[in-house]
């Protein structure tokens, strides 16, 4: 045990200095959170200056209504973001309008102009002319305002009061209340989905990352033969256990750092988006799942004899790890599905399926205990399996073994 801890300590302290580990641990989450928060930040970005937008109308006159509707957007100092300026020519000839419009744009008198023509009672031509690529935000706002005004126009035509219509067609949102042993609980579906999903993503990304480091380290030790020195100092089991401990500690450190970064960067905002119903059990499944995968990976990873082989093995392992993520949509669609239940008893997917299910539906204590037992037994199984392979693989160089050779290794006493 003492030697296993020595190995774990070495693995941990050496790998934690690895550049790609540092990158993944510190830069990657900032990148992900950046990506996730960027649209929200852009959305909330305040408008800086007032824009003058031209508007040309043919067979219709609604520009005051449109301007009024656009008044909801204000600049930072409280001025309206958009001011409409009516464009007209003597004969309203389309060519002349275009000419005038582009002249005004060139003179920077207007940002661009809206062309609005009523063709018949329920048909309009609406176009926005601009020289540069218009901000999507502006377009969306114009669209909303014009739609709003034109809809009201149509309603008035059939003698309906737009205010009344709005009031009568107000939509409701369905609130979910989860009934559990604890009584009624507020349940915000998206948050729980998101929370669960993040939880599984964390597990998978961190696993792929650490497993990559681990496989590379075993290949390095094999190719420089240091493995023989290590085995002259400790048993294969101690070496393997040390590596599993070290790897798990690395992965859990990484996740801890991510959580700290998430909370310090987003603070309560993050917690608002993420919610787990059953944090305690989720954590247990997470840690056990991690150890299970780590112990499995160490056996499979040890058969690689060079860098290329380790990469192809890693891509297979990554697919194995991604499996639960692909399957997660099935559970999100229907947490009660039979498939989800079956997959909970399949060791490779137990941790992720159960994390999803315990957070989304009520899972009986019996089922929790059985799946936990399966997971624990699987850990022992995969340690046995990996131990058999590891013992022979770390001393075989030159070529990657085929399946029948591996089966022979498993049979050997």
């Amino acid at each position, binding site marked *: 045990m003492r*030697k296993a801890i*020595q190995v774990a300590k*070495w693995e941990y302290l050496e790998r934690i200095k690895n550049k790609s580990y540092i990158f993944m641990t510190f830069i990657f989450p900032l990148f992900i959170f950046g990506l996730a928060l960027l649209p929200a930040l852009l959305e909330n970005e305040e408008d800086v200056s007032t824009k003058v937008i031209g508007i040309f109308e043919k067979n219709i006159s609604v520009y005051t209504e449109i301007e009024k509707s656009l008044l909801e957007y204000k600049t930072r100092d409280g001025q309206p973001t958009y001011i409409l300026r009516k464009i007209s020519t003597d004969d309203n000839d389309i060519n002349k309008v275009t000419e005038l419009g582009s002249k005004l744009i060139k003179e920077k008198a207007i940002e661009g102009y809206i062309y609005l023509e009523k063709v018949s009672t329920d048909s309009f031509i609406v176009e926005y002319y601009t020289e540069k690529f218009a901000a999507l935000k502006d377009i969306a706002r114009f669209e909303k305002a014009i739609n709003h005004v034109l809809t009201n126009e149509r309603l008035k035509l059939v003698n309906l009061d737009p205010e009344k219509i709005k009031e009568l067609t107000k939509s409701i949102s369905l609130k979910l209340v989860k009934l559990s042993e604890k009584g009624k609980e507020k349940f915000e579906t998206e948050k729980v989905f998101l929370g669960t999903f993040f939880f599984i993503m964390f597990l998978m990304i961190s696993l792929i990352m650490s497993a990559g480091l681990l496989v590379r380290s075993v290949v390095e030790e094999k190719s*420089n033969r240091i493995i023989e*020195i290590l*085995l*002259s*100092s400790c048993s294969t089991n101690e070496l393997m256990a040390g590596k599993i401990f070290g790897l798990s500690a690395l992965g859990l450190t990484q996740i801890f750092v991510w959580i700290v970064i998430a909370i310090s960067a987003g603070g309560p905002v993050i917690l608002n988006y993420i919610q787990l119903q059953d944090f305690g059990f989720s954590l247990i499944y997470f840690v056990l799942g991690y150890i299970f995968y780590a112990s499995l990976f160490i056996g499979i990873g040890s058969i690689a004899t060079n860098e290329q082989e380790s990469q192809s093995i890693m891509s297979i392992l990554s697919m194995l790890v991604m499996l639960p993520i692909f399957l997660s949509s099935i559970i999100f669609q229907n947490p009660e599905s039979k498939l989800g239940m079956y997959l909970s008893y399949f060791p490779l997917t137990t941790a992720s399926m159960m994390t999803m299910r315990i957070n989304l539906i009520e899972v009986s204590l019996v089922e929790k205990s059985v799946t936990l037992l399966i997971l624990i037994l699987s850990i022992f199984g995969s340690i046995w399996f990996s131990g058999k392979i590891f013992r022979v693989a770390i001393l075989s160089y030159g070529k990657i073994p085929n399946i029948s050779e591996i089966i*022979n290794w498993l049979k050997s006493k």
Partner: protein
Amino acid sequence: MLKVINLHKEFTNVVAVDNLSFEINEGEIFGLLGPNGAGKTTTIRCLLNIIQPDRGEILFNGSKEYDIKNIVGYLPEERGLYTKSRIIDVLLYLGELKGRSRSFVKERATYYLKKLGMEDTGNRKVNELSKGNQQKIQIISALISDPQILILDEPFSGLDPINQELVRNLILEFINEGKIIILSTHQMELAEKLCNKISLINKGKQILYGPLNEIKQKFGRLNLYIKGKNLDEGLKNFSEFETVDLYENYAEIFLKDHFNSKEVLQKLLMKYEITSFELKEPSLHSIFVMSVKQSGK
């Protein structure tokens, strides 16, 4: 004393080690010799308890109750270290993994680094060192835990003469402390100079075993060493010669049982300009070659 009794290990369809027995006393350098694939590495791995023998016992000081991993230092034939790690960290790790305390290992590391003229390199990374210096670090790593038994696989390969001398001195210093060294090598000259006792194995079987001088005596005959100018393959046609090892300007000849040295010399003089003609005990090299050949028959 390390005692190996009837060590036997088979892999699928191959007998790697076939009932091997030997014993090594404190203060002895034991040569484990044999051609490639003879079973040397398997024997070493069994000794190190990296693989389990099918049969046989390995006793240290008469007992099976010892943890070989804590009392052995090992230098594998193919060298390598954690290239991106600091030298001192690597030495500390390998020493502590042998169950030694950090302070003990640190002290030994400082001692050996100084002894090999590398006291300033502890904080450098392994890959910043020259090949020769990396080899020295590797040898230090085998000695770092102050082992009772040292197993060296081709310790001199890749070393220049100066470093060979350094390593030779380390080996002698170690053996003078009354410990055990197992030296696995192909270099017979080296084994001849260093070893007190040898075991020659071929295809897993031990074909020669014992103290070096006894083996030479037991071989019971003398070899012919001749020096001369135009020595050539023609020597092999002499009916009195069993085998001929031909070198640039000398030859070591393994003679057949019945021969007349006078006649041989006369025959040689008729064909070659002989400058030296000497009968002396065979070199380990020729014993090795002969024994391997005979065992193959």
